[in-house]
């Protein structure tokens, strides 16, 4: 299968007062269509920069980002984004929040059709009956669910998530992993997930990319050879445990390199 996302030799540095700060160094990532790529790495290694590059929100100093065989130079309508902060609009109801991308991407779509699509998604993530509530009336986990619906309501080719579950408690997070798994089964999309949580990367990912410390390059790629309909139990079985060990060692190596530099 062709690669939907291809990041080829991307190098990027931020200009700061004390000179250029390199964050990405010859980074290579390829994600085939429909696959789920989890990206892990030490703090501050440039993972968030990666999401902004794929979304076309910024251009790399060197290297290329390709989506669907087209080079990304500006934002595209076929991308969905979710962040650690659900960034729901407080003045809109949950339903109106989920509809927001459709107002931009499909301005001619009839309102009834938009609402039907949004309600369908809300039901899938377990928010049935909450569509007319305001974001402030929902718990953190529920807000993040609504944020996920908004990210995929316009059927994007690529879903980019930047530590979307980072601020949630463990059990809520595990619930959302399962929601994510079910959403993917119902609505196929290609996904890039930036995370700090190794268990999350193994549970959700088809591939796990380990980034080195800053400036980040691809240190290792792990193929997660587990069935698509994973349950939480699988994380406690030897195969997944081995992968978690491997990843943990890789992170240690990544941090070590980081340590030498400072």
């Amino acid at each position, binding site marked *: 299968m062709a690669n939907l996302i291809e990041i080829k030799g991307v190098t990027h540095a931020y200009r700061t007062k004390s000179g250029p700060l390199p964050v990405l160094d010859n980074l290579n990532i390829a994600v085939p269509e429909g696959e789920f790529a989890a990206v892990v790495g030490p703090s501050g290694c440039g993972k968030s920069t990666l999401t902004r590059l794929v979304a076309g929100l910024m251009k790399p100093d060197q290297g290329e980002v390709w989506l669907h065989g087209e080079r990304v130079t500006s934002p595209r309508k076929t991308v*969905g984004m979710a962040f650690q902060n659900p960034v729901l*609009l407080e003045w809109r109801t949950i339903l109106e929040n989920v509809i927001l991308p459709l*107002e931009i991407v499909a301005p001619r779509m009839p309102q009834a059709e938009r609402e039907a699509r949004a309600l369908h998604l809300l039901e899938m993530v377990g928010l049935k009956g909450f569509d007319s509530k305001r974001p402030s009336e929902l718990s953190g986990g529920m807000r993040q669910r609504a944020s996920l619906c908004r990210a995929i309501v316009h059927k994007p080719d690529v879903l980019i998530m930047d530590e979307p579950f980072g601020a949630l408690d463990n059990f809520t997070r595990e619930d959302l992993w399962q929601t994510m798994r079910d959403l993917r089964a119902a609505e196929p999309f290609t996904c890039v997930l930036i995370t700090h949580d190794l268990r999350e990367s193994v549970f959700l990912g088809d591939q796990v990319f380990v980034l080195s410390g800053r400036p980040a390059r691809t240190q290792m790629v792990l193929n997660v050879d587990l069935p698509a309909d994973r349950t939480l139990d699988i994380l406690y079985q030897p195969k997944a445990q081995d992968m978690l060990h491997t990843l943990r060692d890789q992170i240690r190596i990544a941090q070590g390199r980081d340590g030498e530099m400072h």
Partner: protein
Amino acid sequence: METLQKIVVPILAVLLFLWAWEALVWVNDWPNYKMASPSDLPPAFWKFRWLFLEMGWQTLWRTVVGLGLAVLFGTLVGMIMGFSRIARDGLYPLLVGFNAIPKATLVPVISLIFIGQHDFNTVLMAFLISFFPIAVSVGIGLSTLEPEYRDILRSLGASRLTIFRKIALPKTLPEFFGALKVSVTLAFIGTNLVEIVAPHGRGLGALFKSGETNGDYPLMFAVLIALAALGILLYYAVLVLERIFAGWAERPQS
């Protein structure tokens, strides 16, 4: 029971205040030219009832027009400062400096530049005195918008105008109304300032001035009460607008 309490308690407080005022004047046996008592006010209102209506209307429309201009101009300046770092660095010292000038000192300046244009001068002063809080709050509201809010729409290829209309503008509304509550009071002060100071002025301020000139102290106090009533009216009008347009910002009571 609670709504009854909400209505009865303020009324009782006002009555208590009036009674204390009346008692103060009565106990000290102050003559009218020292301090008028509440019982002097109804006759004063009745005697000048048409003047009160006319002058009250003058004060009201000039305050509202001045405030309206302040909203337009303040929002525009706020937008420019919110979106452009250079504009913010350039405009901010100018605005702060201008705001630091006590506006009373501008009355003779304006009166000289625009001689005889009483309506214009009054509206101009109401505007000058009240746009600053709006400009600052809109500017700060826009420049502190979290980048993620912008990114969710920008990643879909939305234009800057769309992002402003759908996200930045509504998100700034609570700050805007906070500033508007300050500005409405300021605009009211600006209007009265010109009405009182300018020769041959109109409006409640001029009525106050004529009470002073003619030694009609009950009239002066009646004007003060009328001004208070008008000020309350304007303030609550802003509150109602806030409830309508930014009611979502009020946290549900729990």
